[in-house]
């Protein structure tokens, strides 16, 4: 059987891209192989490890379990799109300051899940259990979990404080 090719247009990290994809291609494969965005990693390729997490319309999802053709008209943000003007985003900085990684393979996924969670808090300060639940789809074989939770808790506290100041 012949493969089926389709053109798909979607926003990646703020700019519009049109890519020809095989209907079988996952979003992850297209990001990595066609768009050279290798921040999202291929770990399990079956929605278990979370290393491939990206934001689709603001929500963290596994890009291994979404077809590239499904992204037509949507907005995708990868780890590469979080920093602004060469400046790390608050959550990236917090991961750095808290030493929330060892090998770094899971880090982009952890940060994307954290970002999605932090954006959905609406000024609330989460407890530790909530943070752990929010990141429960992201595995870290090095075991940096405690420091990851610390980083997320810190950013949540800062953003709540800033929200109150405004």
């Amino acid at each position: 059987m012949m493969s089926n090719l389709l053109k798909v247009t979607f926003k990646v990290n703020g700019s519009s891209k049109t890519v020809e994809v095989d209907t079988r291609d996952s979003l992850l494969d297209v990001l990595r192989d066609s768009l050279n965005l290798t921040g999202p990693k291929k770990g399990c390729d079956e929605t278990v490890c979370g290393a491939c997490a990206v934001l689709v319309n603001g929500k963290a999802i596994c890009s291994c379990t979404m077809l590239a053709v499904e992204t037509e008209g949507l907005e995708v943000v990868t780890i590469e799109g979080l920093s602004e003007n060469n400046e790390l985003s608050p959550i990236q900085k917090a991961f750095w300051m808290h030493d929330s990684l060892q090998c770094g393979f899971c880090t982009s996924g952890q940060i994307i899940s954290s970002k999605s969670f932090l954006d959905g808090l609406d000024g609330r300060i989460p407890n530790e259990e909530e943070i752990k639940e929010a990141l429960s789809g992201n595995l870290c074989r090095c075991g940096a979990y405690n420091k990851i939770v610390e980083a997320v808790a810190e950013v949540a506290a800062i953003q709540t404080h800033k929200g109150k100041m405004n």
Partner: protein
Amino acid sequence: MILKPFEYSSPHSLQEACKILERHDDAKILAGGQSLLPIMKLNLTEITHLVDIKKIPNLSSIEVSNDQKSLIVGALATHADVERSDIVKKVLPLLAETESSIGHPLVRNRGTIGGSISHCDPSGDLCVTSLALDASMTIARSDNSRRVVSAKDFFQGTFTTALKKGEILEKISFPIPPRGTGCAFEKLTLGHGDFPLIVVSVVLRMENAKCVSAAIAIGGVSDRVIRVTRAEDLLKGKVVHAEDLERAATIAEEESKPEADIDVSAEYKKKMVKVFVQRALEKAVERSNEV
């Protein structure tokens, strides 16, 4: 990686989608894809055409019906949408509780309620809860008509529902339990976010300490989700004591016919049915006093 090529279409209306499904023998509906795409990667299924229904408008609303008696959830509402919905938390916390236990947030942000229910896993969390609540499924057809099927008749076997060729689950209607109803959801998984081995959902309506109606639904113990009517009948009309709950849980164990899987034996699952049903019933009785 998905090996076998397939065609893809994303129609803008339910009728159009039904028609495409009718025209193709091995067509499948793509909603959130959190069950379907992993299955396709495992090469477990022959699919020649995917019909993505996410471009169809108005399929993800969450609202209370005009008569205030039911909660109506569009098939494309994601697990995260339902879990976080203030309406759901208020009128049907059992559904929010069920949704928040599915997989992990990365899955819940993408997976849909209609997709889970149509996937019809015999231990599907939402299948169990919709059976316990006597939900009804509104199904769209290619002639633009609708038919409604009760949860009891909808789940027909492993990955097999009442949906016929060319039909799409449009929305699910959950009766809102009246005051004095205690609900509970319990499940056994080996690890956080893993596939559930046993899923239990119970709905107990109490009046003056007497049980007026009982629903006990279990997943993972048969080729489909089941109701334990013998245990329900035992509780109905009674002032319920702890030993009645234990007796009901024992009946649930007796009626369960789980199969062993790669991780645990059938005997273990059977024993756990009793533990989890009893736990759920106790919680439900306690909660019926709170509302």
